[in-house]
């Protein structure tokens, strides 16, 4: 870019500033629908830039004459400011219903984390330290801490479960495209009911915990990993393999949930393994046990009809 060699001065800087404004507003929302000649302004941005330096030579792409007219310049700036305003309003209103910024935290994963987490889900018996590390009162993003819950694995596992269920139904000649939707809504309803039941029981036992609803959704979604592997084993190797792998994964998810929830629900002393008497701690222990025991039940309930 040889713009620095061309004419300098106030107008040059103003043009560059306008160019950057236009750049950001075109890339932000779907700028193609807001500005008529995005095709000339988009990829020919560099071309327009160079043409500005070469002076008012009219032999250029149509963007140049478009830009040199002050009225259309004004209209373009006004349009881009309208677009930015609109986008901010949509973002603000959407953020009220679905906490998007909080959701972004749960998807901040990377490959290493996913690999380690899947390993812990399959074999939780060797993992020693289950505490979530904090950083000034907020939990650390999943990328930096294996114990933090995330939403990437549950979402992917849920979708894969629906696809594998379709596959299993297809091998038994029971498939039709509506069944995918039925399976999806059925599994979603069970998930919602489970999360609501856990929330209700947490409210009744008055546990002071920092488990959010999204955390509970994440924990309820981790069992889909075991279900997928169980169904695939059943498809490939028969019913015995299905029962064996379900047994293994039921045990694994049971231990995983107990070890994870123990640190969040129980008080400090009880979490370390000492026996603390008192009805409150007993209730909390029962609550942890029942949440963990509900997982294998759901795992079996949602998969047994797929293996005939």
């Amino acid at each position, binding site marked *: 870019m040889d713009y620095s060699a061309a004419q300098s001065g106030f107008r040059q800087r103003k043009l560059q500033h306008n160019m950057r404004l236009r750049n950001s507003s075109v890339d932000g929302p779907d700028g193609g629908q807001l500005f008529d000649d995005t095709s000339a302004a988009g990829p020919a941005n560099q071309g327009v830039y160079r043409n500005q330096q070469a002076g008012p030579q009219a032999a250029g792409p149509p963007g140049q004459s478009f830009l040199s007219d002050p009225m259309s310049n004004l209209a373009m700036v006004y349009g881009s400011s309208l677009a930015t305003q609109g986008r901010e309003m949509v973002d603000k209103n959407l953020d009220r219903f679905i906490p998007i910024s909080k959701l972004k935290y749960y998807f901040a994963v990377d490959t290493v984390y996913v690999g380690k987490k899947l390993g812990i889900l399959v074999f939780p018996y060797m993992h020693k330290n289950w505490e979530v590390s904090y950083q000034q009162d907020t939990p650390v993003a999943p990328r930096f801490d294996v114990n933090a819950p995330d939403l990437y694995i549950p979402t992917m596992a849920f979708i894969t479960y629906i696809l594998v269920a379709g596959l299993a139904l297809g091998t038994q000649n029971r498939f039709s495209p509506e069944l995918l*939707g*039925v399976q999806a809504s*059925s599994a*979603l*309803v*069970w998930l919602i009911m489970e999360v609501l039941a856990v929330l209700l029981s947490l409210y009744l036992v008055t546990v002071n915990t920092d488990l959010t609803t999204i955390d509970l959704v994440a924990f309820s979604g981790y069992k889909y990993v075991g279900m997928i592997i169980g169904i695939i084993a059943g498809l490939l190797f028969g019913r015995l393999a299905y029962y064996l792998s379900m047994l293994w994964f039921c045990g694994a998810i049971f231990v995983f949930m107990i070890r994870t929830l123990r640190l969040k629900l129980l008080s400090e002393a009880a979490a370390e393994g000492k026996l603390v008497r008192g009805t409150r701690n007993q209730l909390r222990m029962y609550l942890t046990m029942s949440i963990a025991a509900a997982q294998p039940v759901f795992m079996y309930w949602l998969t047994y009809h797929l293996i005939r």
Partner: protein
Amino acid sequence: MAFTLYTLIQTAILCINAIAVLHEERFLSKMGWGADQGVGGFGDDPGVKAQILNLIRSVRTVMRGGVVVNSGGYRVLQLLGERICDNASWCI
């Protein structure tokens, strides 16, 4: 068991309605579940029974203006739901 989202909504409405129609004088007080019998200790441990009573009382307070469900409102909802479910091949 094929649950749909509509079934979930139906279940939720029916359950909330069931809690909302529990009568204070005739029923709850007789069973020792009245609104004045729950707030016992102001300590740090409300206990399960106090929480349940709180929950029942708050559901009744919220639904006081809307026991629409018991009237024809529920029948209308049901008809609407059936029509939607009949016309669509998926019934989500």
